[in-house]
């Protein structure tokens, strides 16, 4: 009986405040959607970091016979002594602890690779094996320490350039972190808007039902019972918003993200999958409950007079 009564009260509240309820649903939807996107982005970054860091290596390009850009190679092609000095440096002293293994790719191998990939193009016809120098690939034990390695060997004689692939990742992750921060900022502002909206909705709803609540108080209905429909009205609207947010994230990760990344970057990057959207759902729904609860506490404190 009571349950049904509360339910009909909530429904009639929804009818009466349809536009406000709609606003609450949309604002919580966007707010929690932004929170969810930030969470998914974080998951994505963590996952990709793990995968990509496994593949991170420092590539040390040695001076070719005929460099395109002379730079550090004014002394001509790298000599065997210089190469040995480099390898010794990598495998001894303080650097040894960061280096997992090294591998040398000769200029000829690189040239063959290049011809295989770009053979027949204008560029491939212009280029000779002398343009390439050998490359030393260094696999790091701790990918975060690339800087130590590149600094130590980057200026050694015979080294054209030491490049670390993770430089690219760091830039990417930096960008992602900024995007995530922006998403969280948007989420915070909208969460505040949601709280204000829910508060106003509860207040409006209470105002439009003053006569009912007056009678309820007169005949001895408990405070909780009087306030429950208002609290639940806000909570149900917020929950609907969170469900929409989960649905949207699920849809984006299912139908859009995978295809989009594949098309534009030509790679499957272990992208966020629909199950991840489901995994963040409890957080978003919890967020909705917190928003609604906070609003209820803010509003109802004022009219708990018996």
């Amino acid at each position, binding site marked *: *009986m*009571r349950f049904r*009564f509360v339910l009909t009260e909530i429904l009639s509240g929804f009818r009466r405040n349809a536009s406000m309820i709609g606003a609450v649903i949309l604002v919580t939807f966007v707010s929690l959607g932004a929170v969810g996107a930030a969470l998914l982005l974080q998951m994505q970054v963590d996952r990709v970091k793990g995968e990509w860091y496994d593949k991170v290596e420092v590539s040390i390009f040695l001076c070719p016979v005929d460099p395109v850009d002379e730079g550090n190679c004014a002394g001509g092609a790298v000599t065997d002594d210089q190469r040995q000095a480099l390898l010794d440096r990598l495998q001894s002293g303080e650097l040894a602890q960061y280096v997992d293994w090294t591998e040398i790719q000769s200029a000829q191998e690189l040239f063959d690779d290049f011809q295989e990939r770009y053979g027949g193009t204008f560029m491939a016809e212009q280029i000779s094996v002398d343009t390439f120098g050998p490359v030393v690939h260094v696999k790091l034990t701790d990918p975060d320490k690339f800087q130590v390695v590149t600094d130590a060997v980057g200026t050694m004689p015979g080294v054209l350039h030491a490049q670390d692939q993770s430089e690219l990742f760091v830039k990417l992750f930096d960008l992602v972190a900024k995007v995530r921060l922006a998403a969280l900022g948007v989420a915070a502002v909208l969460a505040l808007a949601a709280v204000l909206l829910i508060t106003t909705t509860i207040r409006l709803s209470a105002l439009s039902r003053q*006569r*009912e609540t*007056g*009678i*309820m*108080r*007169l*005949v*001895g*209905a*408990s*405070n909780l*019972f*009087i306030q429950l429909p208002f609290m639940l009205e806000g909570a149900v609207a917020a929950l609907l918003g969170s469900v929409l947010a989960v649905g949207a994230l699920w849809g984006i990760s299912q139908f859009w993200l995978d295809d989009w990344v594949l098309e534009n970057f030509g790679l499957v990057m272990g992208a966020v999958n629909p199950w991840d959207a489901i995994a963040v759902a409890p957080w978003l729904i919890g967020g909705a409950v917190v928003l609604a609860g906070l609003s209820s506490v803010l509003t109802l404190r004022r009219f708990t007079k*018996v």
Partner: protein
Amino acid sequence: MIRFENTTKIYARGARPALDSVSLEIPRGQFCFLVGASGSGKSTMLSIVLREEHATAGRVFVLGEDLSQMPARRIPRFRRNIGSIFQDFRLLERKTVFENVAFAMQVIGRPRHAILRTVPDVLDLVGLAGKEKRTPHELSGGEQQRVAIARAVVNRPQILLADEPTGNLDPRTSEGIMAVLERVNQTGATVVMATHDVGLVDQAQNRVVELVEGRVVRDEASGYYGGEA
């Protein structure tokens, strides 16, 4: 049943007291009129009995409870023993007669079968049998007040507080309402009625308590509106 002991009520600091050390006892089952000009303190007395207002000084006992000692969480349950009606009926316009009366049972969690059994009986008591499906705007003023009475007594309160219940009604209709209140009184409920209705008071020959500026100036077991002729 209801006892005021030197009760004073001051609404705003420095204002004239709405009630000025009133002492009064209304025993179980009595029908008591409160008369006096507007602002004499009648409504304040009723509000204090209902525990909507606090006495500023003195004590008030209702149904054996000292209201000044009653914690807020016990107030709802306490109020289930008290019915209230007002000059302006306070019905819910969107609900039917039946729903208006049932509302008072629903909100304190009475089961459906009890509601279906009790509401028709109460509507019969107030003379509204057959009008269950009407909405308030389809009823006359007198009928609306009957709905309000039905709602006030449907939970079988021991006390019925009536604050100028006939203030908006013509004399003949008022007599009908008075008859209903007397019927409620005969079922055992104590009735306290604040009124300006000279005719009703004179005709009923019930106890009359007259207030002037918050003080009891007259208390007669079987009195008239303006005192004994």
